[in-house]
């Protein structure tokens, strides 16, 4: 059995167990006598132990075993203390770190330091509690790997290996053998036998005994490192998702229907029956749409797993900062593309940190809320703290040269707030443990925009701060607006388009050098896409097609030659080195075969500003 191929599955499952552990611990924090939760916790630790031992991840198995021991104690007492909860959370972090080691093909870090500790237990503790370290009796005996192979001429290799396995059992306890005794009894005829023996006999002595078997070709005692070499090195971890069998059945059905549809179309074509062809294409449209919908489902994950990590962050921070923080979540059942959730995990944690660290003074509420709005998902992180101090931002912006003194006076509050997302901007002079981990708001903003979303900041002095993330549902297939400039068609994600308007040339106003238009009681600067892309100046259009969009936190009107249409497209990232082209974040091939590039307005404007 090649264990390595189960690694990805192991990683995925253990991660899930770990998330559950943290969630259970946080629930226990509010109800430390919930027997069911303690039992559940025990089962989780037990599952991890079993899986890790099977995969031969010794450190993880040892740690899980240690936890299991202590949980057994908690079960007997019938409750778990806060100190214990913190201890278990610490252990969860350690498990996470071990998973990380495994994921990156590193040897597991030692858990010795942790397994040497036991949380302080409640006074009512049973005597057992005093020494749960006895969980590790393997110290006096050694764990020996023995690998045996037979000469090719040996008459009955299966029975021979069975005899050898039994013989080895005379020297200690066979922890594991490949193949197992049962497999051998079933008639397995392996080419070699690998035995994990717990023994106090030296390898030399065992080797001497084994040399009496002339049937043996090789006797070796592989050490752990050698064993690892059997496993593929640096094999990239495949990202895995679990999908329900029901969904798989849907796929099969759809595939079946598509095959039928193909014949229908071929037939219609042969007969040149245009009506039937038309019907077939209609059918195909329905099927593909359905398929697309189902495939998207596979990629979708709910925000619940994320909520677990966030409430963990709140828990830890409120403890360490001695602030009383209530954490509210809403809409965590909302589903988003897995890639988006992964990309946003760190930024969201950072925003939560910010809220607790800078927003809330002594006590307050931090909330995360998610909801759907057409084909967008909105996530809002809010706190009811003091709000962002606009004056401080103004000072800081002047200091680092983001604003000229003149701009500092005239800038609107909304625009001022957006400045906290500028690289290098930070109003906190001293770096503290909570927020000083190098992830600034600029990183948050970049991450949100990277997945095609928009970050909005809103803050009222004395009432709190609210960050809103407007996100697309999925990354790969998105709805785009296709526009044309100088006979070149380009696409922009619909999520970035506020509205498209056609205005008469006479409606354009000018303010100094800048052209402006009126839009919903606001004056928006009017910019030409031709100019931005350094395309030749074109003829004048009237009416003028304008895309109202939001870049760098400001609304602008973008002039294009022509608005073509909206459609769903499958966006492919451009391969290196084309991925370095600023202003272009991908491409797609239209039904006509035409290649269209996806405009990344954000980076276009950044380039322009620089």
């Amino acid at each position, binding site marked *: 059995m090649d264990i390595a191929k189960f690694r990805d599955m192991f990683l995925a499952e253990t991660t899930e167990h770990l998330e559950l552990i943290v969630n259970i611990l946080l629930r226990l924090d509010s109800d430390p006598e919930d027997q069911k939760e303690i039992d559940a916790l025990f089962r989780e630790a037990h599952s991890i132990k079993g899986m890790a031992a099977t995969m031969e991840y010794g450190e993880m198995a040892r740690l899980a075993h240690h936890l299991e021991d202590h949980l057994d104690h908690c079960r007997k007492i019938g409750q778990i203390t806060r100190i214990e909860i913190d201890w278990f959370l610490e252990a969860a972090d350690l498990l996470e770190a071990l998973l990380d080691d495994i994921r990156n093909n590193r040897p597991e870090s030692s858990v010795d330091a942790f397994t040497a500790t036991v949380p302080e237990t409640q006074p009512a503790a049973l005597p057992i509690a005093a020494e749960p370290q006895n969980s590790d009796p393997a110290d006096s005996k050694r764990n020996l790997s023995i690998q045996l192979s037979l000469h090719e001429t040996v008459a009955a290799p299966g029975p021979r290996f069975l005899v050898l396995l039994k013989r080895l059992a005379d020297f200690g306890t066979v922890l594991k053998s490949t193949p197992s005794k049962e497999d051998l*009894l079933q008639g397995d005829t392996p080419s070699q036998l690998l035995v994990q023996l717990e023994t106090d006999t030296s390898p030399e002595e065992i080797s001497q005994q084994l040399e009496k078997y002339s049937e043996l070709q090789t006797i070796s005692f592989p050490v752990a490192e050698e064993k690892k070499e059997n496993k593929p090195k640096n094999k990239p971890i495949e990202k895995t998702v679990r999908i329900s069998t029901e969904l798989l059945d849907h796929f099969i059905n759809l595939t079946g229907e598509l095959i039928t549809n193909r014949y229908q179309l071929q037939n219609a074509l042969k007969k040149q029956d245009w009506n039937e062809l038309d019907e077939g294409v209609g059918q195909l449209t329905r099927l593909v749409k359905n398929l697309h919908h189902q495939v998207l489902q596979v990629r979708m994950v709910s925000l619940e797993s994320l909520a677990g990590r966030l409430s963990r962050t709140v828990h830890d921070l409120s403890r360490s900062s001695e602030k009383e923080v209530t954490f509210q979540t809403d809409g965590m059942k909302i589903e988003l593309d897995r890639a988006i959730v992964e990309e946003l995990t760190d930024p969201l944690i950072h925003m939560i940190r910010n809220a607790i660290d800078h927003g809330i003074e002594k006590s307050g509420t931090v909330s995360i809320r998610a909801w759907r709005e057409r084909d967008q998902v909105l996530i809002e992180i809010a706190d009811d703290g003091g709000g962002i101090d606009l004056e401080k931002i103004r000072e800081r912006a002047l200091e680092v040269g983001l604003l000229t003194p003149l701009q500092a006076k005239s800038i609107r509050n909304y625009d001022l707030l957006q400045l906290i997302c500028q690289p290098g901007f930070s109003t906190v002079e001293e770096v503290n443990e909570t927020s000083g981990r190098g992830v600034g708001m600029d990183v948050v903003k970049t991450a949100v925009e990277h997945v095609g979303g928009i970050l909005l900041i809103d803050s009222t002095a004395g009432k709190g701060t609210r960050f809103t993330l407007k996100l697309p549902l999925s990354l790969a297939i998105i709805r785009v607006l296709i526009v044309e400039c100088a006979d070149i068609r380009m696409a922009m994600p619909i999520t970035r388009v506020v509205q498209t308007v056609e205005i008469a040339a006479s409606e354009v106003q000018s303010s100094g050098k800048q052209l402006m238009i009126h839009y919903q009681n606001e004056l928006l600067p009017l910019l030409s896409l031709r100019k931005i892309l350094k395309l030749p100046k074109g003829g004048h259009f009237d009416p003028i097609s304008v895309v109202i969009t939001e870049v760098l936190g400001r609304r602008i009107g973008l002039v294009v030659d022509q608005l073509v249409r909206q459609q769903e497209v499958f966006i492919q990232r451009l391969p290196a080195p084309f991925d370095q082209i600023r202003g272009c974040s991908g491409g797609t091939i239209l039904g006509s075969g035409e290649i269209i590039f996806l405009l990344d307005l954000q980076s276009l404007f950044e380039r322009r500003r620089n």
Partner: protein
Amino acid sequence: MKKRVLIVDDALFMRSMLCDIFSEAGWNVVSEADNGEAAIDEYRIHQPDLVTMDIVMPEMGGIDALKKILLEFPQAKIVVCSALGQKNLILDAINAGAKDFIVKPFQSHQVLEVVGRVVNEL
């Protein structure tokens, strides 16, 4: 002191051959038996250092005899003899407690290696 062996096989030819091999190698063949029942009786009388036991025999076969002997004498060292095609029987015998096995047809040095290491096991 010479090691004492009991040879169990329903074929006279096999018994004679094993008898020669053991005698030439300096063993003391204390008795022979041609079926399982007889093997148990002979074992009780002689309690030899080693038994070579054919698996397929009329009336009581080798595996049953082996189990009964081991039930009574857990320390008994029994090596089974079988033809190559009977791999599953060999596996069953080992599972039932046979120390080792000899595959027929055999050569004298193979037999002596197997029985030698079995009687010298600690």
